[in-house]
């Protein structure tokens, strides 16, 4: 599937609905593009720097010796600097954060283990900075510093939806949360300086599974105990575990210093935890015989505690 470069540059995000193989191809292509963009940026950056240095040297020499010739050379060099800058700008939008598409590749591969090859998957990966304006969710005066504002950001840069081979539909979302405090600070000398500080508030990992009732009909029975089946890495908190007859939703809160590998490990644990519950539900659901009447019920005339 061809990647729309214009859209990628403009929105700084990749979004597609396709089979896993195509998504992985796209992500590989993104990786190649990113490497190429990094190379070109470095190349044009070095070239621009050289031209600027050359322009300064020419300007200096022209002022001493050949003014007009030097002026023409200077204009030429400045033109070259502008052209190089334009060329470089073409690749700025294609320089993507490596960890984002690498994470997407890893997770897509992980989920693909239990998917059929033709299963369509919707993948959304955002490459914008977490502190982009559209990610701001709240802005309020700083509770402790007068004149400062405290902005909250939520950046859900990774979302994948699809279906497993057992008929279960899944939705997995990763959201980073930040707080950005900014304001003016007066130094001891009386100067006012603009200061800002960004603090991570953690990452949430949200997994929702919508299960086929024929296979996992007994899921509701495990409603009260499902939470105990969730295993987590140290430092990770269970934010939510909700089981309904139709599926389950688990949300983990990862610590602010969570690395990409920690997120991946937490996700594997999360998936295994969810399926530890589902597999037991399947065990309880697979029996299709009618229940036997107990002897006690017969003794009580079939009363069922009404």
């Amino acid at each position: 599937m061809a990647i729309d470069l214009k859209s990628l540059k403009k929105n700084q995000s990749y979004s597609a609905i396709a089979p896993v193989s195509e998504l992985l191809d796209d992500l590989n292509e993104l990786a190649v593009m990113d490497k190429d963009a990094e190379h070109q940026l470095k190349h044009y950056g070095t070239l621009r720097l050289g031209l600027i240095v050359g322009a300064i040297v020419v300007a200096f020499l022209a002022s001493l010796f050949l003014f007009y010739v030097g002026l023409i050379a200077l204009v030429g060099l400045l033109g070259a600097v502008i052209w190089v800058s334009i060329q470089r700008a073409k690749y700025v939008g294609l320089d993507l954060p490596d960890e984002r598409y690498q994470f997407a590749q890893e997770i897509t591969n992980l989920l693909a283990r239990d998917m059929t090859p033709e299963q369509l998957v919707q993948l959304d990966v955002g490459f914008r900075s977490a502190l982009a304006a559209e990610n701001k969710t709240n802005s309020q005066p700083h509770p402790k510093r007068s004149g400062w504002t405290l902005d909250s950001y939520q950046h859900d840069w990774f979302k994948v939806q699809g279906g497993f081979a057992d008929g279960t539909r899944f939705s997995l979302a990763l959201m980073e949360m930040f707080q950005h405090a900014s304001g003016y600070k007066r130094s001891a000398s009386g100067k006012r300086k603009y200061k800002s500080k960004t603090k991570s508030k953690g990452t949430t990992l949200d997994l929702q599974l919508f299960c086929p009732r024929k296979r996992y009909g007994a899921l509701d029975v495990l409603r009260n105990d499902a939470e105990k089946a969730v295993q987590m890495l140290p430092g990770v908190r269970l934010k939510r575990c909700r089981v309904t007859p139709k599926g389950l939703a688990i949300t983990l809160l990862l610590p602010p210093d969570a690395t990409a590998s920690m997120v991946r490990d937490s996700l594997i644990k999360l998936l295994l935890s969810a399926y530890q519950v589902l597999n037991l539900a399947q065990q309880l659901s697979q029996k299709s015989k009618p229940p036997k009447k107990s002897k006690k019920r017969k003794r009580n005339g079939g009363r069922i505690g009404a």
Partner: protein
Amino acid sequence: MSGQAKQGQGMKIRLVWKDACSGAVRKPVLTPPVAIGADFEQLPEKLGQRSVSRIAIADDTLKPFHAILMEEKGQLIAITPKDPSQSMADVLRSPAGVANAIQKQSLNNGDRFQLGQTPMTVQVSAVAQATAAPVETEPAETEPSETEPSDASPAPSSATPEIPLPPQPSSDEFSTRPTKLLDPDLDEDDDMITANDAPEADPNPANAFSVKQTKLLDPRLDALPELADASPGKDAAVGDRAGAAGAGAAVAGAAGAEDNRVMAGSMAKSKTPKAFPRDEAGAAGAPSERSSEKAEENAKTGCDRQVGFLFKRRCGRLTPTGCPYCRQNNSHDYDPYEADYFYYEHYGDYTVGHWGSDYYAERDRYYYNRDAGRMDFTEADAASFEEEFDNDYEMDMGAS
């Protein structure tokens, strides 16, 4: 005691089949008669006075009580109803007589047959049959106590229903093929599960049966002395419901055996059967004929290997190209995701002490009504309701 009784005591059979859900290969050693069906509780504990080994297989196409394997004159016989709509329970209750309602098929060592959708291979202890006669001459040594629920106590001629043997009919549902061992796994020295080794071998309930490294019960391998202790009276029920997809077969011992089925091993430890024939590098000792047979079989039906990470399912690939399981010289032990199971301690393990053990132990009491789309009232619910009945609510200040 008759000679047949002695023969029955000596004959051990080993049924080998692959659990359709978990993919685990089951290889219990049993003493005939063996009742096979889909519902453990509907399988008879005794036939006449003989204890019966029971095997429940999670296969929707099987009847609750599908077939009996029993020994007759030193020959292993498979008995199924003539009428496909009937189960063996109906046949045994049939007023018209059992003889006309059943069909018999003799089974030899290595025969492969199919029950419902579950193909099985039977391995008969030929050594045991050969040694049956000498045992017959020493009744004092082999006379079991009457209290022991051993299959050797009564004579099968008097204990089992009188079932005359008609000529072997052919049946679509239950067909035997005197073939070679089609599963290459069977030719290898492999872990053998003997159910009654469990309690002594490992007190840890998580490993409730022991895994003994022995040869297969195959005349060529002369393994019988190591396997001969699988008496049905002592057989513990074994249900190796390995993991996520582990809908499994429960292999139970004979009468009186407690239904203490446990799931042993984690998903990561479960073995998956080999799918595609090994390539030359990995074909150490594997006959090329068998590989080509397997290749042909796979080409038609797809790979039988159980694959997947969160839940196991049939692979179904027609070629090994691009298969992550077929990379390591097609080793059947190779699981590309094995390392990831260590992220979750005891994944797929619902034995005592692990999450879900209570539900798992009571799983037979849960009944999901697929038509209504809900869990129906079960015996367990009844018990809990009755406990509520017994409460004196006037004394319960918290009751509304």
